[in-house]
């Protein structure tokens, strides 16, 4: 597919769906790793275009959703401190910690600010030399280069009042962990195009061959997702397990080497806890020794904060593809985007919120309508 001009063309979507139907001879389970793709699938009704044999499993690729509760509680503790300006991307503000969220901290007088770029937080540190500015550095490999540059520039400018609370997670170890799980049902992966725009896909061939699993890199537009699924099904039906790039207009094999070089300097691999899943070895980044002074966990004493997940939220099973959001008894009843139990309902990229917002709800809530006379 060369030009996007054909992209929202329903006829092409139907043609791709027909091709998928034609070649599908049995049940296949395909995981889209990325929450952005989950969102696109639900919003555009892609799941309803596919034959019933194709099951889409929604993966853990929503950084807001997989950031552990303990890390949220640390963020809340730091944000509530006097003299701290706590900066975050907007979608973290509503994620519930043990007893509140960042919005609550803000309404109780904490200086919590939404920034568009981590460089805005560095700028705030320059403008407020008597305050400690902390940036909540979460995300996958797409967001990491921005966060790495922020820390790098803070060090370069000799800023002593900037630090970062880091909870970065990585896609390849997650794919590896999913494939090693004894309850795994995933037979092919759609990889997250923008992660690969940074990292390329040189890390992926060993994963595909070791686990004998097709991995197709694709984008976020409806036809990108459909084309990715078509290529997965073709490989599955042919018994192949290759890495394919269906997002050539953005992704190259090498990725962005300049970004990878700084990532290597600023970050070091570490074990990471994934919310609802548990610890996956070497699945994330922390600040490297050279940048340890900029680690908010070292700067503020939050080491005694240990939190356990709420037993009523089944987001962990959702994140692993073990259950669908609608299988959870709380879904759409006690747990809605306005009253979320867990992160998969808070973030618009979370599978539960995507199901709720795009009408995969069996029963509508009763909505009170105010009639203007």
């Amino acid at each position: 597919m060369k030009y996007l001009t054909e992209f929202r063309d329903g006829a092409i979507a139907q043609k791709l769906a027909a091709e998928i139907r034609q070649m599908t001879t049995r049940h296949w389970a395909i995981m889209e790793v990325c929450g952005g793709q989950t969102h696109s699938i639900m919003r555009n009704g892609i799941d309803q275009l596919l034959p019933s044999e194709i099951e889409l499993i929604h993966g853990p690729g929503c950084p807001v959703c997989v950031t552990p509760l303990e890390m949220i509680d640390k963020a809340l503790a730091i944000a509530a401190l006097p003299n701290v300006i706590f900066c975050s991307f907007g979608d973290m503000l509503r994620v519930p910690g043990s007893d509140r969220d960042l919005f609550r901290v803000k309404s109780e007088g904490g200086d919590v600010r939404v920034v568009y770029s981590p460089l805005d937080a560095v700028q705030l540190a320059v403008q407020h030399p008597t305050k400690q500015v902390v940036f909540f550095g979460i995300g996958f490999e797409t967001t990491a280069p921005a966060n790495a540059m922020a820390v790098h520039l803070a060090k370069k400018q000799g800023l002593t009042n900037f630090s970062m609370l880091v909870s970065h997670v990585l896609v390849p170890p997650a794919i590896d962990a999913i494939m090693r799980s004894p309850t795994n049902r995933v037979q092919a992966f759609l990889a997250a195009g923008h992660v690969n725009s940074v990292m390329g896909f040189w890390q992926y061939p060993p994963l595909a061959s070791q686990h004998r699993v097709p991995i197709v890199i694709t984008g976020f537009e409806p036809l990108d997702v459909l084309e990715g699924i078509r290529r997965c099904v073709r490989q599955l039906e042919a018994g192949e397990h290759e890495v394919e790039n269906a997002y050539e207009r953005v992704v190259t094999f090498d990725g962005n080497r300049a970004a990878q070089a700084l990532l290597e300097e600023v970050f070091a691999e570490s074990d990471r806890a994934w919310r609802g899943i548990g610890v996956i070895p070497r699945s994330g980044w922390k600040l490297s020794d050279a940048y340890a002074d900029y680690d908010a966990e070292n700067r503020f004493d939050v080491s005694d904060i240990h939190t356990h997940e709420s037993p009523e939220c089944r987001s962990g099973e959702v994140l692993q593809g073990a259950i669908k959001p609608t299988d959870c008894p709380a879904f759409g009843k006690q747990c809605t985007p306005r009253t979320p139990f867990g992160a998969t309902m808070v973030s618009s990229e979370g599978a539960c919120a995507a199901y709720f917002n795009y009408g995969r709800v069996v029963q509508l809530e009763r909505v009170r309508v105010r009639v203007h006379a």
Partner: protein
Amino acid sequence: MCLAVPGKIVEISDDGMVRMAKLDFGGIQKQVCLAYLPDAVVGDYAIVHVGFAISRIDEASAQETLRHFRELGLLEEELGEIPDDEYAPPPPCPVTYQ
């Protein structure tokens, strides 16, 4: 969180610390860090995520993606043009699939 918006480079500056550029996203202009696309020049299109250009993209694809984002009402949100207190979940979809 991992969406990225294509924009056109209209002006490049260097503050001595890092290479920056002004990009145009279908009418909305923003300062973007260009450190990871050292060879980019004015007129190029790039995909931007949280204030950083991460890869090049051709003009036709860029325009189409921008149009798509605007249709979906996602452009302002992705570019951080929404005030803090407006972050709220979208209303539930009125359509049900029985």
